[in-house]
């Protein structure tokens, strides 16, 4: 398909809050803590408070899940999060509104939407991109849009100035890697295991080897996710990557505090702080 991106030449210069963040972190020799929560989980009010509290708790980037009935790449924790949010009435429009409200007080922390293509397709790609941009969304991670389907959303997103962040996986071989990195901007999300979210923790050595492989093809920051649950695991991954994503462990707090919703926000933000400390330890 396309020629490999030259390592020296940054591809797709969509300048964004994400680029600014990684520039700041690089200057300070720090790694990024990326916190995942699902929008509207367990309800709009608590979810908005979590979102507002995450930057203070140490999240450098917020990855906000767009709930979907059929999250095929997600394990039980994030499936449950989607179901709670949908049961509470969350919609894609509601998710965009949440981000717009967040932006009234925070114009720095990048927000990346993560999810599946169908709700966006149904919303309408052009309208979605224009509304997302206006709401203050910086990037998109869409699980079921591989490079083969770039015409659908990736290329329109780039044109609209929204980062399209691609997932690279252990099965992404040398032949595919240039295609996967092409049209990617903001950062690269390295999926540390072949599996679904919330699986067993990744092996540091294997991940390190794969990151080294990716680095030969791109200058973009590389964040690692899937299976990372504890501050120690986060510290281990931060030692070898530019950022660490934690999702299921945070979302589990929302599931575990179902009987006592007064604790949900504080407990989740406390875990986020501990994870951020792990990431910054290196």
């Amino acid at each position, binding site marked *: 398909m396309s020629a490999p991106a030259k390592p020296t030449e940054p591809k797709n210069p969509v300048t964004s809050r994400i680029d600014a963040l990684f520039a700041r972190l690089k200057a300070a020799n720090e790694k990024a803590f990326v916190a995942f929560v699902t929008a509207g989980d367990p309800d709009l009010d608590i979810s908005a408070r979590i979102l507002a509290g995450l930057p203070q708790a140490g999240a450098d980037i917020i990855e906000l899940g767009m709930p979907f009935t059929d999250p095929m790449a997600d394990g039980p924790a994030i499936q449950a999060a989607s179901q709670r949010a949908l049961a509470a009435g969350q919609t894609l429009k509601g998710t965009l509104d949440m981000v717009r409200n967040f932006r009234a007080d925070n114009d720095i922390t990048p927000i990346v939407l993560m999810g599946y293509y*169908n709700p966006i397709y149904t919303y309408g790609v052009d309208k979605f991109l224009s509304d997302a941009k206006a709401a203050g969304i910086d990037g998109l991670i869409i699980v079921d849009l591989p490079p083969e389907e770039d015409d659908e959303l990736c290329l329109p997103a780039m044109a609209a100035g929204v980062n399209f962040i691609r997932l690279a996986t252990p*099965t992404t071989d040398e032949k*595919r890697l240039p295609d996967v990195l092409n049209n990617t901007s903001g950062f690269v999300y390295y999926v540390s295991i072949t599996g*679904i979210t919330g699986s067993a923790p990744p092996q540091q050595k294997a991940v390190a080897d794969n990151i080294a492989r990716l680095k030969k093809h791109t200058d973009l920051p590389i964040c690692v996710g899937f299976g990372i649950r504890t501050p120690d695991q986060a510290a281990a991954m931060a030692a070898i990557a530019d950022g660490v994503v934690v999702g299921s462990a945070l979302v589990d707090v929302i599931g575990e505090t179902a009987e006592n919703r007064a604790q949900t926000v504080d407990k989740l933000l406390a875990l986020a702080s501990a994870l951020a400390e792990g990431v910054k330890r290196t």
Partner: protein
Amino acid sequence: MEQKNSFRAGPDEKGRFGLYGGRFVAETLMPLILDLEAHYEAAQKDPAFAAQLEDLQTHYVGRPSPLYYAERLTEHFGGAKIYLKRDELNHTGSHKINNCLGQILLAKRMGKTRIIAETGAGQHGVAVATVAARFGLPCTVFMGATDIERQKPNVFRMKLLGADIRPVTSGAGTLKDAMNEALRDWVTHVEDTFYIIGTVAGPHPYPAMVRDFQSIIGRETKEQMLAREGRLPDTLIACIGGGSNAMGLFHPFLDDAEVNIIGVEAGGFGLDTPDHAASLAGGTPGVLHGNRTYLLQDDDGQIIEGHSISAGLDYPGIGPEHAYLRDTGRVTYVSATDKEALEAFQLITRLEGIIPALEPSHALAHVGKIAGDLPADHLLVMNMCGRGDKDVFAVAEHLNVEL
């Protein structure tokens, strides 16, 4: 040679049938799907693959399946001459085995050592468990907990055949949820696992591959009808969940403009209620399970659970090639309700001594709606894609009979 403007030309190199189809999957699966496509293309060109498949179809499945003139049914409706394509006589009791044999031969070619599958009514699950036993591969079948409850005979058959049955409790616990779980398993075991998808859906090349393996139904029908009546049939009718039996019957006839083709979706409690599984009649285009097609969904793009009396039809999507054939108008899509299917089930059982599955009972219900108004020389073929052994308990319950 394919004619210009052929309805049989798809999919294109992106796996599209017009707007529909494609490869909407996670990156982890993408290399695997490209590998599968390459192996399938190589297998298609390999006479040894075709020869082995044909040998199994003849001696293991019992093909060709008969094209049976349903004399009493014809008399009953008093119109069109009704033929039944008897794919319910296949080994395992449905058309599903046609596809499973093709795919397991491909799995062996690719050196895969583990088989997974999703199943709704259990017909596909039984067929997969059967070929897995025949070829000595371990097999895991994902099945919605609700479906396990209403398809107990098939669940036990799969267990006897050595399959590991994984109940799926997410969502409504039906076919769509089983497919999600199978995809999650696949992404976790990409190295050694082959996913035998049971219908003409999923990411490219599955819709085309399953169609090709099922097209033997239509090719045989064509030959048998020419031998029997000296001409092509006037009307083809088949039921549609994902649409594999229908695509198998329809595909060889798509460019025969004189053949009227009708697909029958599951109307559940009626299209004017929310409880049906008619994706074409009541759905809109969307992306699910690796392909773009018509889906039952709400305004926010959230998928709605389908409902049908038949566990094999209550899928909220439909194969992408059917979506294309609907938009182009080549195939007409209608629906039959639970009640109509149940009546047709009883009618054919009494008139022809054939207990059909609830799935083709939907097709039969539509035959009943049109046959009487057609002339006596009108040749109508209905695909009897499955037998009803698995459904007798469910039917008894619907008829308020205690066994």
